């Protein structure tokens, strides 16, 4: 690989990292604003214009609080726990294609940090590691309630990972590829996977809610009826890290859903737009770059829509009871996902038979 490509990759990875953190930061602000809107309140409006500096104020508060470690806690693991949660959360955005290619000075630049032929499995593997942050944190606190909270969170994550993987298999059967870029390319124009996989998408969406510990699946931190879960003993920025990792996970889950089911950076009439731009600017390169940039905007619009949906649901639905949650995961979602696989397989065979 040429050094200029390496330099570009390094810059791109840093930019994606920065954007991930920025979006997660402002998710906290918009969550409170949306909650306020739904409950007919004003929401944060003191720090900066329209309360826009509120996330900075929150972070400042968390940093300056006493960094407390319980006396009989396992110190090293107590510190590593939130670290793992953050690390794992920021890792998965590496394989997501945020846009098509840009052509600058004859260089074709892909708007994706790393292209691997197992992109979907990479995301899945990283997601399955997210449990360790919670479990290590809960155990290291040396508190029964923390431990029970950690076990609760871990068993929920494992249960819903199964249904999530099964709903993914139907998509992979259709696309025949594990590479996220190829999956995105196959959905060019308006040929999105959601039209073929509505059931799979709903299963994936429900599992994404459970994996990110969002309402109605936020039992790991239901402080009202159970003790606040695995982070009972945490305070200061370590608690902040756990909560922040949740917002990063929401961003990543939204990006994955947009890529797998909602056509990633593709938008309707993109080829017509490109043909028209070629006619206007008389340069295929400029037209390609403009369409790519519009595609990036489309991708982020889809991501923001999903993030909004996450928040909308949080302030609309009440929480599940734990046995209902397990029943939904094991007895409803997994059979539905298997049914979806059979239907997809039948559909593919029928298509081969008819056409």
């Amino acid at each position: 690989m040429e050094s200029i490509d390496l330099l570009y990759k390094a810059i791109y990875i840093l930019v994606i990292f920065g954007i991930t953190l920025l979006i997660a930061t402002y998710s906290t602000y918009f969550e409170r604003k949306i909650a306020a809107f739904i409950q007919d309140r004003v929401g944060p409006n003191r720090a900066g214009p329209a309360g826009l500096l509120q996330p900075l104020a929150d972070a400042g508060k968390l940093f300056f609080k006493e960094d407390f470690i319980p006396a009989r806690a396992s110190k090293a693991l107590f510190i590593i726990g939130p670290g793992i949660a953050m690390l794992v959360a920021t890792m998965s955005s590496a394989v997501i294609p945020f846009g098509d290619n840009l052509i600058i000075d004859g260089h074709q630049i892909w708007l994706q940090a790393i292209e691997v032929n197992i992109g979907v499995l990479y995301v899945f593997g990283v997601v399955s590691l997210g449990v360790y942050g919670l479990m290590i944190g809960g155990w290291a606190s040396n508190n029964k309630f923390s431990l029970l909270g950690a076990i609760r969170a871990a068993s929920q994550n494992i249960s819903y990972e199964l249904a999530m993987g099964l709903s993914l298999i139907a998509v992979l059967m259709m696309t025949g590829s594990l590479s996220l870029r190829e999956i995105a390319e196959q959905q060019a124009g308006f040929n999105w996977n959601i039209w073929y996989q509505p059931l799979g998408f709903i299963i994936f969406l429900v599992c994404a809610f459970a994996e990110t510990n969002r309402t109605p699946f936020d039992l790991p931190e239901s402080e009202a009826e159970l003790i606040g879960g695995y982070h009972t003993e945490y305070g200061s920025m370590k608690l902040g890290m756990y909560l922040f990792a949740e917002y990063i996970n929401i961003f990543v889950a939204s990006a994955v859903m947009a890529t797998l089911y909602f056509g990633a950076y593709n938008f309707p009439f993109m080829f017509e737009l490109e043909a028209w731009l070629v006619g206007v600017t008389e340069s295929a390169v400029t037209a390609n770059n403009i369409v790519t940039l519009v595609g990036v905007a489309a991708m982020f619009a889809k991501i923001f829509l999903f993030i909004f949906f996450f928040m909308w649901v949080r302030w609309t639905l009440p929480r599940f009871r734990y046995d209902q949650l397990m029943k939904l995961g094991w007895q409803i979602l997994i059979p539905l996902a298997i049914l979806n696989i059979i239907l997809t397989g039948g559909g593919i065979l029928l298509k081969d038979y008819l056409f």
Partner: protein
Amino acid sequence: MTENLFYFLASLTLLCALMVVISKNPVHSVLFLIITFFTISGHYILLNAQFLAAVNIIVYAGAIMVLFLFVIMFLNMNKKSENLVKTSTLTKVAGTIAGGLLFVVMIAALKDVEVAGYNAETYNSQIGMVENLGAVLFTQYLLPFELASILFLVAMVGAVMLGKKEVGEQHF
């Protein structure tokens, strides 16, 4: 570069594997075992077998070790219970002899083994990719593959049977 990476990963693997055995705290042992799985995945990536690397992480580090951690966290092994279980001298002697015998057998078996090399010209570097692996699994090794899935099915049915509520049994 690749060679240096290999030596780094290999030494890290051995170190973590040793720490699994040496660690006093069982939870630390499990965590070191997880790191060992990661380094093994690193070896797979060096061999250009990305699919195996990802599946190794998902299945072993992501699923099986979580269940290990589950069980061990519930065992609540603190200082007190550690002192209760004393290893007797007889156990130690027996363990040493058994371990030494295993070591001798390993050396005897591996002494005369010739490492099958590879031909750099005919070697297919894409052999570890998903498509090739899938093609081999579903043609050449179809029967063992299907038998393995039947084994899993049997294990699953057995687990469900063990976990089933008996007639008249009530938990709460």
